[in-house]
């Protein structure tokens, strides 16, 4: 119990001194916080974007729709036969048939080409089947189902609804690698800034550290304020980075909304949960470790045991 209270007292003393040091040099502290925040912005932006893309990928899988356009000259009996065959296929859980007349009426209603469509002597639209694949099917299986459908004699074209989103998913894989590399680089940058700060601070306070050692200060006593200061600066810096990312997302969201609406999709940029959680935690852990190593090794250069 006594040991625990001793530990708590030493830790709170280190924390108090770290706060005092941070407040004693407000300009330097602010500069460091902003440097950390700016350095974390890019990986944070990428991480959040990636997270949103991954979430979109999940909703694509939920759609699992294949549009099957039949040939114009398909006879009703042939269509009926195909519909029956597909209805009994275990890989398909839902089938919706859209007749050419219904499709034309819908097109006339929704588009601005009503007059043009009225001028047509024949209905140019084919019979369309909208199939929903079973949730047990993976993306490659859905793709092969679409290819199989295209091989049918009465089918003109079978198109996956989410093709473009799948490309985004592929892009996501690339992004994941890119984000990891960028995150590591910028995290290293943050660590280097803090390590350099700690080293310079030790040199500036060399006399104080020497005296502290002479009157019985342990390395732990000297190191604790530095580590707590790194923790404080990084925590505030990462919160500021999240705020900046949020502002950037707000600024680019309208333009992005216009872009994705062209694909009949919604893709909203916001700070993801993982980013909110991992950005401060990983940054603080890395910074604390880097600072501890730096201070410990720099103290060896002070010629008092």
């Amino acid at each position, binding site marked *: 119990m006594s040991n625990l209270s001793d530990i708590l*007292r030493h830790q709170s*003393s280190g924390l108090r001194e770290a706060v005092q040091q941070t407040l004693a040099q407000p300009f330097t502290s602010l500069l460091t916080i902003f440097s950390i925040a700016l350095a974390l912005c890019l990986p944070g932006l990428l991480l959040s974007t990636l997270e949103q893309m991954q979430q979109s990928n999940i909703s694509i899988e939920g759609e699992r729709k294949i549009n099957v356009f039949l040939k114009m000259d398909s006879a009703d009996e042939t269509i009926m036969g195909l519909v029956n065959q597909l209805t009994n296929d275990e890989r398909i859980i839902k089938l919706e048939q859209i007749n050419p007349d219904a499709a034309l009426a819908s097109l006339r209603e929704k588009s601005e080409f009503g007059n043009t469509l009225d001028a047509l002597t024949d209905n140019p639209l084919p019979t369309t089947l909208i199939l929903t694949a079973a949730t047990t099917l993976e993306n490659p299986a859905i793709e092969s189902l679409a290819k199989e459908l295209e091989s049918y004699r009465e089918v003109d074209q079978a198109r996956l609804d989410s093709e473009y989103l799948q490309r985004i998913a592929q892009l996501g894989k690339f992004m994941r690698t890119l984000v990891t590399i960028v995150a590591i680089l910028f995290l290293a940058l943050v660590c280097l800034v803090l390590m350099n700060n700690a080293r310079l601070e030790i040199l500036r306070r060399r006399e104080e550290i020497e005296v502290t050692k002479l009157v019985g200060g342990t390395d732990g006593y000297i190191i604790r304020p530095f580590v707590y200061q790194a923790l404080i600066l990084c925590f505030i810096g990462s919160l500021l980075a999240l705020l900046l990312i949020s502002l950037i997302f707000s600024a680019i969201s309208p333009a992005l909304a216009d872009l994705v609406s062209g694909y009949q999709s919604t893709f909203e940029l916001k700070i993801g949960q993982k980013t909110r959680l991992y950005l401060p935690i990983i940054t603080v852990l890395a910074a604390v470790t880097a600072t501890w190593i730096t201070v410990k090794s720099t103290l060896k250069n002070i010629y008092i045991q």
Partner: protein
Amino acid sequence: MIELKHLGKRYPGGQEALLDINLSIDKGEMVFLSGHSGAGKSTLLRLLALIERPTRGKISLNDKVVSNLPSHSIPYYRRNIGMIFQDHRLLPDHTIADNVALPLRISGVDQSVIQRRVDAALDKVGLLKRSKFMPIELSTGQQQRVGIARAVVSRPSILLADEPTGNLDHELSLGIMKLFQEFNDVGVTVIIASHDQAIMDSFAKRQVELKEARLVSDSAANTEEVDV
């Protein structure tokens, strides 16, 4: 009891700072280390405080060898020793009270106890009313008194003072030495390195003389080595 046996210190460049020092200092004793500059007085104090390690021989405290203490134990050993330096080594951006409180903060003493003991130490050296001053606002003699207050605040059993009166006039020096004697009177072992023979002679205390890295005389043993 402090015991030095065949103690030697040789620096990497080859310079011998101390050679074959044998010395015993009883608990509660007050000892002056005398000798010219470069004789090895400061080195001996640095070895006693384990700021440096001896290259030969050993240092024992209360029959326990301390010269080979592992590095992580040295701070705890040093908390039992009060050190006073010629240049005071006060922290310029801390108040007098904060300077004196440093050893207690390091030891994790409660704030209320710190306040009480800092006040007592500053009162003892006559600077209680200046506890909120910064070191630069005090005279050299007063700064040395702050250094003494810091050294005694954690109630160490040993005080090591390296030329504590080096920058002071005779009267101020006497005042400082009387302070040391007062601490010695209550049982603290005091070892003072000084080259001021007049000051040392003012106190009827043991004198150990160093010359060219060797111990050449010890008033307690009443022996004098000639031409070593």
